[in-house]
């Protein structure tokens, strides 16, 4: 059945995939205020692209592509973004435990920190890997070959392993 492209359905799509949007934004933006802006920008770009969504791709693939593309470009276009887009007073995604950070144990905090230290494309790869995507999915989202994905993921995992062991020793 073809996807309904009206605003109500769009909000449902965002609701169903809010975790992806948040995780991607969180990986590319440490600052809370910038992250709110980034989440708004991702939602806006998803809405602008929604009428052109090609159903031959899975919805999650489409959302990842837009969320990652917007996040990677985000740091480069801060000035023009400020000029054009209206900032909503309130945020789109809210963490219930807003006043205090999520109760992340130290390993998870460390993992987030390590991910943020990766270069933009490696960060995207690691996110997709941790989310459990297949190599072929990752290849489709990034636009590189599956064998390239395999090599790079292997290298990044090795980097992470080394960082964890250095940190813990």
């Amino acid at each position, binding site marked *: 059945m073809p996807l309904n492209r009206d*605003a109500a359905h769009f*909000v449902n799509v965002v609701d169903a995939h809010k975790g992806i949007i948040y995780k991607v934004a969180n990986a590319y933006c440490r600052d809370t205020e910038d992250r709110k802006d980034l989440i708004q920008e991702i939602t806006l770009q998803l809405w602008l*692209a929604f009428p052109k*969504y090609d159903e031959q791709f899975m919805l999650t693939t489409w959302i990842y592509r837009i969320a990652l593309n*917007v996040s990677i470009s985000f740091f480069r276009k801060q000035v*023009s973004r400020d000029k054009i887009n209206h900032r909503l007073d309130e945020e*789109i995604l809210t963490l219930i435990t807003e006043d205090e950070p999520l109760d992340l144990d130290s390993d998870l905090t460390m*993992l987030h920190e390590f991910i943020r230290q990766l270069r933009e494309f490696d960060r995207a790869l690691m996110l997709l890997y941790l989310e459990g995507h297949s190599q072929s999915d990752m290849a489709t989202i990034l*636009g590189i070959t599956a064998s390239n994905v395999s090599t790079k993921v292997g290298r990044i995992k090795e980097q992470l392993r080394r960082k964890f062991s250095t940190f813990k020793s």
Partner: protein
Amino acid sequence: MQESELIELWRSYDRKLEENLTLNRQNAAAITLMKIKSVVGSMVPMKIFVIIVSALWLSLVGVVLYRTYDYASPFFWYSIAIHAVILAFVTGVYVYQVVLIYQTDLSEALVATQYRLAQLKGSTLLIARLMFLHAPIWTTFSIQQRMFQHPVWMTVQILFTIVFVVGALWLFFNIRYENREKKWFKFIFRGNQWEPVVKSIEMLREIEQYKTDGQLIT
């Protein structure tokens, strides 16, 4: 840390998010009511305006060059001809940028889209280089043959033009990403509008690295 532990760690984060993350549906719906063009698309009108104005100016300059070929001062004629050629290149870069903008689709694969966006932003540096290259003609187009009858004037003029030519050529060849940390580079390209340009070139390098590491697919 083992691979399975890593995945389990991430899943625990997922579970925590699922319990704590809520969508403000009203704000999400407000996004759908915004009358906003995409950021990339919003650059088009200004670029098209520049292309049209440049094309009109080039046509006018072309007519002047054609009509004055027989009697104009060679300094004037060749200076304006060089101006026209460089401006034609600059206009070409603007046309290239508009094509890139129309080709940009954020729902396409990451590497290809980022490469296009980085090329788009990075090409702004080429425009700056061409504009610097163009500077010496402003010292030559008004030279008259009779000025050469005054040695002092002629010496000043030649020195002035040489300084501009050397400076313009030096800047044209040295305005490169590799020199981004040099003081003179930072002095010329300071400010918020240039930072994304330098970052875009950095991104282009990173993508080139991806290209050499493995085959890209579309």
